[in-house]
């Protein structure tokens, strides 16, 4: 996904003089050709993430469309107050693009893991949150984000599904139909969810857009599945539970939020090792989904 992002952003910078890219060393080498062509609009501030977001906020105040990019924990967690104040409180807007996801670089340890990034951004009003599940989904999401005038968080990962399954309209995409529950797979979780639900009487719906969430689509799908909803998200478990409540305020419903657990494992290894620890393997998901749907 990062390669797609680099290619897409480079092309956008070439085409649109209204755009600017701010980096904090991460991915700087990949953007060097773009920096050489647009030295005033491709800015590497060094390993200074607070400045990264502050500068992006300042660029927005002059009418430019900034894209700020670095590793997820440094972009969202370290610079969170800058996101809150230097964009939101200024009534300014831009595009944040992260790499690293929850634990793409599992061996690097907790400092490089960011399972809470989406939950943090979700505390801020008005942000769109896009979580592509395949490299082929990235370019369209990127272009829509940069071409708009709102604030967008685009969360890239080294992990993904076997194929692209959604565009940019933000709607839930039903891939299977069942009666016992609707299982919403977000971004890179889809392949695991499809494997986990083989033979289960559940609807599987995919999305790469969690804010704004397709509430109308969920109402329709949940209504045909006993208003039983399972969220499978590649970040903090339960992050989108509130949007399920918001979508179904007038109907009794049950919600199970699956995702990264609230625990610091103090472990390294591979992303697959962490999937095991967080119950996100197909087998673990199948057990959790089947058990919840049967209650």
């Amino acid at each position, binding site marked *: 996904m990062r390669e797609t992002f680099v290619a897409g952003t480079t092309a956008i910078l070439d085409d649109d003089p209204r755009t600017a890219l701010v980096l904090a060393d991460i991915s700087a080498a990949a953007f060097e050709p773009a920096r050489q062509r647009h030295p005033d609009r491709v800015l590497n501030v060094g390993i200074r993430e*607070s400045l990264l977001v*502050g500068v992006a*906020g*300042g*660029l927005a*105040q002059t009418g*430019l469309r900034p894209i700020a990019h670095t590793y997820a924990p440094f972009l969202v967690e370290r610079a969170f107050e800058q996101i809150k104040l*230097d964009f939101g409180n*200024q009534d300014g807007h831009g595009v944040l693009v992260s790499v690293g996801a929850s634990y793409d670089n599992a061996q690097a340890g907790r400092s490089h893991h960011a399972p809470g990034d989406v939950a943090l951004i979700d505390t801020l009003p008005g942000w769109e949150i896009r979580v592509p599940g395949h490299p082929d989904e990235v370019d369209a999401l990127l272009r829509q984000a940069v071409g708009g005038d709102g604030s967008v968080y685009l969360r890239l990962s080294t992990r993904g599904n076997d194929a692209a399954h959604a565009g940019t309209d933000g709607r839930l995409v039903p891939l299977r139909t069942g009666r016992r529950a609707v299982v919403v797979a977000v971004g890179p979780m889809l392949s695991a969810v499809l494997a986990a639900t083989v033979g289960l009487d559940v609807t599987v719906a995919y999305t790469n857009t969690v804010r704004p969430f397709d509430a109308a689509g969920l109402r329709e799908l949940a209504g045909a599945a006993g208003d039983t909803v399972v969220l499978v998200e590649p970040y903090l478990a339960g992050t989108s539970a509130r949007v399920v409540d918001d979508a179904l305020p007038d109907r009794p419903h049950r919600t199970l939020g699956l995702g990264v657990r609230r625990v610091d494992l103090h472990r390294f290894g591979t992303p697959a090792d962490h999937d095991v620890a967080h119950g996100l393997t197909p087998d673990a998901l199948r057990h959790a989904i089947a058990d919840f749907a049967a209650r």
Partner: protein
Amino acid sequence: MTGDEKHEPSATSTLDVLWVLYDRVLRIDPDTVGDPARDRFLLSKGHGPAAYYAVLAAKGFFPPSWLDDFGSYDSPLGYHPDRTRLPGVEISSGSLGHGLPLGVGVALGLRAQGLADARTYVLVGDAELDEGSNHEAIAYAGATGLDSLTVLVVDNRSATHGWPGGIGARFAAHGWSSATVDGRDHRAIESALTTPLPGRPHVVVATVESKS
């Protein structure tokens, strides 16, 4: 102004430099607040905005009668400025350490759009420089020769541990041009603000009476 203003030393320390900025230096007035080529002034030290509001009102950015309602729910004048509520305010501030990084971005954005004559001024306090985000901005602006940026440090010696070696020296170490003036001397403030060195960002340290 009425009510519990708070941060009175923070406000009174900035009154003279703010007046000089708006009266003699900044290329901005109530009729040009939307002009892309205007100078920008960013009050990073949003604490104690009473002086800022008074100067803006005196210069016609809003009616002086608004001052009477300072801090009330519907007033556009809060204890920290809100750019969405008050004409002429470039940034919302309050939390320290945001204005200078934002100012670097504003200066870069103006440069990228060919608005080379528009200068960006940021006012910070000496205590505010304790915030590490400022030093990210100071280092980067110096390294990149961002010479359309001027920082005005109002020094009332309120930083908890002070600035051994001097504030100007901290900026100069990163390639800034530096001047230190009496923060009550209008001519000296004007002269220092209007004589930056080409190729370097510029800092003016305006010393005023100690907060204590």
